[in-house]
Structure formats: structure tokens, C-alpha cells
């Protein structure tokens, strides 16, 4: 399984990848994207099985990326990992087709809770 991790912070991408390993998802290919536009391009070129994306990023936000994917018919499973977890954002994410929204800070248990069932 291939997982695309999109975050404009390199440190946060490392933390997400480390947490994936700690949560037991350590035998998957990881691809990194540094903003929404990069993520959009890499969904096309890398064909990931899951996208884990930050929301607030320069160039193109994670939300705009999700909207662009869905409007082009691309149905890749997509979840947010973001520092903002208000009920309004969760609703907005769900309405746009996101499977879940993990609020930062998170730990391996949070990842397991949301990813079990998504990652086989």
C-alpha cells in the first residue's frame, strides 16, 4: 500500500511518518508532498492508496486539493491531519469527501483509531 503524506512542514511530515510506524503501519510505501498542489500532482503520478494531508498549506490548501481531486472524479481515500479540529472544519471535510480529520497533536492511538479499516 502506498500512502501520500502532504504537509508544508518537513518536520510534521517526519512526525506523521514516525507515528504511522509507531501505530504499526510500517510496511507501506510513503510518498511526501510539500503542499496541496504537489499532492494533487503526486496523486496522479504516484497513484497512492491513501492521502494524509494537512489543511492549511501555501500554494494550494489540503481542502482545495481534495476538492480538485473529487471534481476530477478521483476517489482516492483522503484524510486530514491538521492543527484545527473544530466541528465546522470536520463537517466541511466530511462534506467534501474526507474519510476523517485527525487533529494535531496526535499519537499512535489516534492514528490506529482512524486508520484501522482504511489501511488493510
Amino acid at each position, binding site marked *: 500500500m502506498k500512502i501520500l503524506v502532504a504537509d*508544508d512542514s518537513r518536520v510534521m511530515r*517526519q*512526525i506523521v511518518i514516525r507515528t504511522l510506524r509507531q501505530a504499526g503501519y510500517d510496511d507501506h510505501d510513503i510518498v511526501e508532498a510539500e503542499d496541496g498542489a504537489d499532492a494533487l500532482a503526486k496523486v496522479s503520478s504516484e497513484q497512492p492508496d491513501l492521502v494524509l494531508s494537512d489543511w492549511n*498549506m*501555501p500554494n494550494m490548501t489540503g481542502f482545495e486539493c481534495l476538492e480538485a481531486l473529487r471534481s476530477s472524479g478521483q476517489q482516492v481515500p483522503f484524510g486530514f491531519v491538521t492543527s*484545527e479540529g473544530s466541528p*465546522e472544519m470536520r463537517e466541511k471535510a466530511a462534506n467534501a469527501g474526507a474519510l476523517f480529520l485527525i487533529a494535531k*497533536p496526535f499519537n499512535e492511538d489516534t492514528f490506529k483509531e482512524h486508520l484501522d479499516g482504511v489501511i488493510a
Partner: protein
Amino acid sequence: MTTFDTGERRRSSDARPVIAELMDDATVQAIAEEAWTALVGEDELLLPMPGELPADVLSAWVDVVGPWTGSVVLTTGAQTAAELTRTLLAETAPPLLDHEDVADAFGEIANVVGGNVKASLPGPSALSLPEVGNAPAVRNPADLLRVDVLWRGQPLSISVQGALPPLPVQ
């Protein structure tokens, strides 16, 4: 036509809340502690004790724009910011950190703390991308919460500060 003074105009002009009406020090401290435990390490404690910041400080902050508008600012010594960066990067830390590494790591901590502060405030509001450098000035001392902590014995301050000047006194 009879008109009534509903107090609407008076209330709306008085409506801009200051941060102390919306949250307290304990909430800011709890948000920072949770961010530290999750991002920096399970055993990493923030002791609620004031310490004297060194001359060479670095700040990281995010802006919140909404019913309350201001910045969530983390300030610590430049060396402490570098130590934080090494801790966050762990085995991927380069032998020599550059400013971009520190800006990324320290900025991301401010982003997580700021995002959670924003979630505790009345919305809707928007959160900026993090910035790192010299902290924005305190515009209204009455619209300020500041929590001073020690991390690994080094001082760090977290300030939630309004960006707008005080309202004129009627």
C-alpha cells in the same frame, strides 16, 4: 413612531472581547503541554515557572482572525529553539541545523498550539501559516495572556495577544 433603546448599538461597540474573557492561563498551559507531549516526547514536561529569557530569542507565531483577532506567540532562546528542532527531527536531524530547519520545527509547534487555542475561541476564525522571527508587538496590554514555562530548564513563554489597539474610552 416610538423607538426603543435596545442597547444594540452600545453592545455591538462593546462587543470586542479581550482574551481573558475567553480563556485562562490554565487552558493555554494545558494546550501547550499536550502539544509538547505529543510532538516533542512523552516525557517532555513544561514546568509552569517563570525564567529569564536570554538576549538572543526567537519567536514563532500564528495569527487568528475572527471574533477575537491576535497572535499566539511562542518565544524562547535561540539555542532552546535549536534543541527543540533536534528533538523533533530525532534521527533525521542534520549534523548542522540551518535556519530553515528551526523555522520549520518551531513554527510547526506554534501552529499546533495556535490551532488548538483557535479551537477554544469563539468562531468562525481563520488561522495563518506560522511565522518565525521577532514577535509581533503587544498592541493592547489588556488583551494578553502570557504563560511562562521551563522546558529542560530553559525558559519559554507562550503569549496569546490581541492584534488590535484598545477601544477608545467613551
